């Protein structure tokens, strides 16, 4: 019972996603394994952006520079990997992850030290990182090592599992799950994870109970930077190049965070919800493409779905709370 109540939002999202898969199959009866692989590939950069945004929102902030950090890490990776050996590329990837973490930490440090509101600091950093990306690479270019490009492509061949089944398991999904879990699972269990939730829930109470508020905030922004770097790397991996102009990941990350049940203002939610939300939003686009809906209408549909889900979810959550209170 407790599980269902705690996870009700995520379960609702899973139900919506399942419904959308059924709808996709109805609209396009040929939709199958390769479609799901493509969906996971498309969701990959959005999912990392959403994860990055989610952790910052949970700590009670917001980071408008996520898409720009993805651009910086993507072009940095592309420039460094061009002509590098496969072995070197591995170290380059690690360096890029460290770079993203440092960039995120810088965002956090600026917020904590200057006491300028996070929305202002990260808006400023949006421009700074955008400029940095263009300095590294004026035009899309660079390269990516083959193993990196191969990471999100295709499905996972499982020994003993027939290909008809295993072809439904995209490598991109595995990559996503592994990367997120490696960071999130230990974090969620750690004191730091608890402190991040505590600060988002009530910064004053957290401060008074001895939570190192500044340090934990910086850590949250640094982890967001790490996720953004993962997003930048998958951009480079999927396109084989780096593009200095940021893609549409900022607003999409906020949308996924809201749809994913993370409360703007902090303290509530997790990473699973926003990531399912990313898949929902991607699948909606797939369905609209299959239906050849007027492209100008698709964004309206996407926006409407988001408002509707958040509204209905809010009403249901309120009802649930009333019932449990009564």
């Amino acid at each position, binding site marked *: 019972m407790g599980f269902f109540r705690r996870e009700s939002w995520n379960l609702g999202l899973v139900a919506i996603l399942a419904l959308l898969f059924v709808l996709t199959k109805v609209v396009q009866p040929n939709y199958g394994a390769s479609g799901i692989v493509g969906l996971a590939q498309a969701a990959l950069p959005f999912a990392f952006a959403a994860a990055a945004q989610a952790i910052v929102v949970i700590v009670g902030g917001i980071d408008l520079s996520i898409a720009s950090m993805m651009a910086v890490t993507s072009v940095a990776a592309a420039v460094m990997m061009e002509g590098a050996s496969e072995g070197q590329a591995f170290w380059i990837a690690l360096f890029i992850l460290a770079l993203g973490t440092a960039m995120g930490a810088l965002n956090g440090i600026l917020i904590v030290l200057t006491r300028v509101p996070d929305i202002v600091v990260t808006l400023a950093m949006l421009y700074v990182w955008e400029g940095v990306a263009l300095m590294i690479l004026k035009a899309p270019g660079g390269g990516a090592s083959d193993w990196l490009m191969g990471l999100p492509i295709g499905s996972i061949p499982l020994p003993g599992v027939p290909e008809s089944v295993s072809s439904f398991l995209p490598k991109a999904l595995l990559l996503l799950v592994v990367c997120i879990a490696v960071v999130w699972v230990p974090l969620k269990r750690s004191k730091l994870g608890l402190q991040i*939730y505590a600060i988002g*829930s009530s910064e004053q109470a957290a401060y008074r109970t001895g939570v190192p508020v500044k340090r934990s905030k910086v850590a949250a922004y640094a982890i967001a930077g790490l996720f953004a770097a993962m997003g930048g790397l998958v951009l480079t991996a999927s396109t084989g190049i780096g593009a200095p102009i940021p893609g549409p990941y900022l607003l999409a990350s906020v949308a996924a965070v809201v749809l994913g049940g993370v409360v703007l203002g902090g*303290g509530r939610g997790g990473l699973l919800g926003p990531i399912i939300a990313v898949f929902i939003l991607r699948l909606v686009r797939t369905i609209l493409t299959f239906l050849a809906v007027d492209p100008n209408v698709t964004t309206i549909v996407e926006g409407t779905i988001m408002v509707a889900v958040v509204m209905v979810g809010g009403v249901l959550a309120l009802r649930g709370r009333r019932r449990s209170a009564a």
Partner: protein
Amino acid sequence: MSDERIPLLEASNVTKIFGAVRALTSASLELFSGEIVALLGANGAGKSTLVNVLTGAIRPDSGHVRIRGREFKAASPTDARQSGLIPVYQESSMIPDLSVADNLRLTNTEPAPFRYWLGELGIGQLGLDEEAGGLPLATLRILDLARALASEPEVLLLDEMTAALPTDLVRKVLDVIRSQKARDCGIIFISHRFVEVAAVCDRASVLRDGRTVGNLAIEPGVEDRIVDMMLGGSIDAAAARKAKSADDRAPGLPRLSAKGLSAGTNLADVSFELHRGEVLGVVALEGQGQDELFEVLSGFEKPSGGFIEVEGNKVSFEHPADAIEAGLAYVPGDRAAALLMQRSVRENIALPFSAQVSAWGAIPVKREGERVAEAIERLQIDTRAQGEVRRLSGGNQQKVTIGRWIATGTKTLLLFDPTRGIDIRTKRQIYPLMRKFAKQGASVLYYSSELEEIPLVCDRVIVIFSGRIVDTFNAGDADESTLMRAAHGLALSSAEAA
């Protein structure tokens, strides 16, 4: 209390200046182990600043704080904790979105002793996986205390710990605090309730205008001296008046009548009349249905049964604005819910005026200004902090919430525990204000969690227990013990005075 002993906690000549305001000029405090010291002072005397210095939230400009004779330079609440000083603040420090268990993890508190103290405090059955945000305020305060006790503090600082608690819990809390003396723990106890101070404290340290003005042993009759010290002898003794008898009540239709009001499961069939020129007290223990009663009367919630009459006309409120329209103004106990904390005193008082102006009409600035000035004068609102309301003391904030309605010319005030957490000087200004307001023909419904103020303010009093009115008294006939018994549902039906 020999002077050779090293005090557990010693603050000497602490000063703190914020801009132009000298919050503390020379505050000192000594606490020995096994001792409970009350820290007393009117609002604005510097209590909160001293608490913040002791808990490491702010750094003093000069002066020393020593723990066991060791200089303590607290830079953060964490440092204070490590030195063995554990505070329980006025507001709960439980993180609302975390479970109780996670809240314990956050402060490295062992669950076993925590459980033990919960049991001692009477809520041992509470599940630790409950989310803190869903628990009632009183329970949260108990959790704060239990968590503090579980970490076996050397110095325990209790800041208005009992303010939100019902009477039965207060007794348990006081018992537990007393038991800590045996452990050689030192306790700083801050409360506006003299009864509690007298019940547990050994000494009282009194602050006035940022300096420590006295250190008294608690003994019978010391209250008056403490009040004198706190107020500097400037208190109007006439404030404590005997309530007038109900006989000279103004004739005519009642201003407000409740006819068989019910709401949810907490309020059942409540009927009463509030007359012109009357202050009607409401006495109830925590959670007996008084919250629902005030919500229904102020239009926040619709009654599930019964109805309301204003001047003999049946009314139905769809929205709080309807209640205001009908002349019923609600002053909540939580001042933050009623005030625009970041706006000025003037704007806050003037707010109901602009509600009367059509949405795009010009605000009549001159008339508004005169009435605001009049209200500030009448309420003696301390306007040193003319700027934002949040910079005012709690007492002055409450005066602003009451003042805005008086300035608007409201006929009926619904006051819900208006004196919670307010110092005695402001309280004693609010009482005669209410009397004067009633004398001018207004009506006041007055719920208070502090029984001793009922005879000072009210003409009549209704007692609610389990959602029903169980008794009605003339306030003049009701002493604290009578009210207390009635509020516990003990002395059902004494002389029905109406």
